[in-house]
């Protein structure tokens, strides 16, 4: 049966590293808690002045294309899923869509499809979800999902504006910049592919997190009801995973690794401990947020590239990816990487 697979992956992280302590030192009032200890995030990558969503996406695309057997004119569709849509500094573009210029820059065919998706941190997986559906239906043969996430502007705003111990902008201090791109194509192989991908939006909680321009300063802010999101997710994720486990006859033991969305170390481990009750334990939890922070829409793929570079994840291994995002969007993907991905030389990020 035709399913899609990850044919190529490219991840780009900016060179500059900024530590959590450096951010805290810039705040007018020192937080009452140890932010690094609470989140598990020691550092994150920070864009250079000339970098924006477009350039971060292009850098990731370059790495992705270098690993791929496809050329630009082979791709039937490109989907861009950046949340912040910044170009030329803090210009938030709504028209044309970002994929429009990426398509031109890449040299894709004029009749190849392009569009953007906005779906918070679930953006890249939303793009993969739709491309997966289009490959399975026969609408397209191959395509790219890319996200250039220039998200540290929300941290810059948070540093200026946080003024109380339970400020809704604290989560903004966890983010890091990145770019990631994947190419998907179809396969009949039983040894690799995206075996399942389920996503659902629990809209009752759609107002728990907003990213929008600040009302106090020029710039963008993110306002997160972090405690409410955490409690909502840990109450529901075990039930949802349990339903998927039953539907697909799966358990944690069927997987070699789990890559959760990278929010905070404590939140991840709490959620997975609870999920073990309905889903069973998974041998290895993959985390890279200590070095790179929460890279939002690219998070799973930054971790995947990091773990491939370290040799922790290898070809043929089955990976559970847990999707959690504002909306609230929850979901899971089961991905087995093909031999061609394992055979490549992965540079450290």
């Amino acid at each position: 049966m035709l399913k899609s697979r990850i044919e190529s992956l490219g991840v780009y992280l900016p060179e500059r590293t900024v530590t959590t302590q450096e951010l805290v030192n810039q705040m007018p009032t020192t937080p009452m808690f140890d932010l690094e200890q609470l989140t598990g995030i020691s550092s994150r990558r920070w864009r250079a002045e000339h970098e924006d969503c477009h350039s971060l996406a292009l850098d990731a695309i370059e790495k992705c294309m270098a690993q791929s057997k496809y050329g630009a004119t082979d791709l039937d569709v490109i989907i861009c899923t950046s949340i912040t849509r910044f170009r030329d500094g803090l210009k938030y573009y709504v028209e044309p869509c970002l994929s429009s210029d990426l398509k031109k820059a890449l040299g894709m065919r004029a009749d190849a499809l392009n569009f953007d998706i906005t779906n918070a941190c679930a953006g890249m997986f939303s793009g993969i979800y739709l491309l997966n559906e289009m490959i399975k239906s026969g609408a397209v043969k191959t395509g790219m999902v890319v996200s250039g996430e220039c998200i540290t502007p929300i941290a810059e705003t948070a540093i200026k504006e946080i003024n109380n111990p339970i400020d809704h902008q604290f989560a903004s201090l966890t983010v890091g910049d990145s770019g990631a791109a994947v190419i998907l194509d179809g396969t009949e192989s039983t040894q690799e592919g995206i075996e399942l991908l389920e996503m659902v939006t629990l809209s009752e909680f759609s107002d728990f997190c907003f990213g929008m321009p600040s009302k106090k300063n020029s710039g963008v802010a993110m306002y997160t009801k972090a405690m409410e999101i955490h409690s909502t997710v840990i109450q529901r994720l075990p039930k949802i995973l349990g339903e998927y486990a039953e539907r697909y006859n799966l358990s944690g033991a069927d997987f070699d690794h789990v890559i959760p969305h990278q929010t905070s170390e404590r939140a991840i481990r709490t959620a997975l401990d609870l999920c073990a009750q309905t889903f069973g334990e998974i041998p290895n939890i993959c985390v890279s947020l200590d070095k790179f922070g929460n890279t939002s829409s690219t998070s799973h793929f930054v971790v995947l590239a990091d773990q491939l570079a370290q040799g922790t994840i290898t070809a043929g291994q089955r990976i559970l990816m847990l999707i959690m995002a504002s909306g609230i969007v929850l979901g899971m993907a089961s991905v087995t990487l093909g031999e061609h991905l394992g055979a490549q030389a992965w540079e450290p990020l």
Partner: protein
Amino acid sequence: MGTVIKNTAIVSDNGFSSLENSTLAGKRCIETSGVCPSEIGALIYTGVYRDDNVMEPSIACLIQKQLALGLDVELSHQASQKSDKSASHAPVFSFDIVNGACGLLNAFKVADALLKNGTARTVLIVSGDCHPSKRERVDFPFVATGGAVLLQWDNHPDRGFVANSYITDPNNESSINAFGDLSEFGENGRENATVLMDQDYQEHFFELALTHINQFTGLNRISMDYLLTNEVVEGFASQLCYASDLCADCKPVAIFSEFGGDIHTSSLIAAYESLQKRGILEPGKQLLFSAVGSGNAAACAHYVV
């Protein structure tokens, strides 16, 4: 067999909030469709301009909540008993598709895959473009309108979307550039947007749409009964129809004067609805949906009623 339009709704003269207009359109579309809300498995928002320039979450999930669709998982029998009976807890996946005036046809293509695969039984697509300030602005080029369309799969051999096509213009920059410059707007970033349209944007869009329609109809060789298109200026549909290779019997659907201007991402829904209201959409009628917009990009879809 293919994806069919089950119902549509258009909202105008309802203020200047994209969210409220598209939500109301969605509500009316569902209520008059005969479709049970619990059948809706996906909700796609295709509007370009967003209230308060909200970047996260998706506008689709905010609309999903207002429509009381897929609010939560069923946590317990007691919880489901207490919940609003009109609300649907059937799972829904929602997201925004953004591609200027072509976004709606991109959403149709994506929805077609979801319906063909059986991943969703019904897809609700909504649209709406108002100034981010949610106020009437004379410098905003689009008329505040919300639209909604329900799509389902139909196994009838001769109905639905049968072909589609898309192109971008490789030779020119986008004729519309719209952005919020947060450095420039200061603390007023939520209320502002800069919309720049090239002096020749109408001509560029016309040329691209004309080229694409001729390519598409040349390949498909079907006599179309109606041309449905977004109208960037009054008379756009009829000029396009008569300049193209579409047969002499093909009639353009004009919407510009009805709404007093360009209604952007809601255009094709409004065009379809106007045919529906006139009672002339008999089975077998051949419709050509055409959209052209920023990028620059053009999209076509052939629909059999």
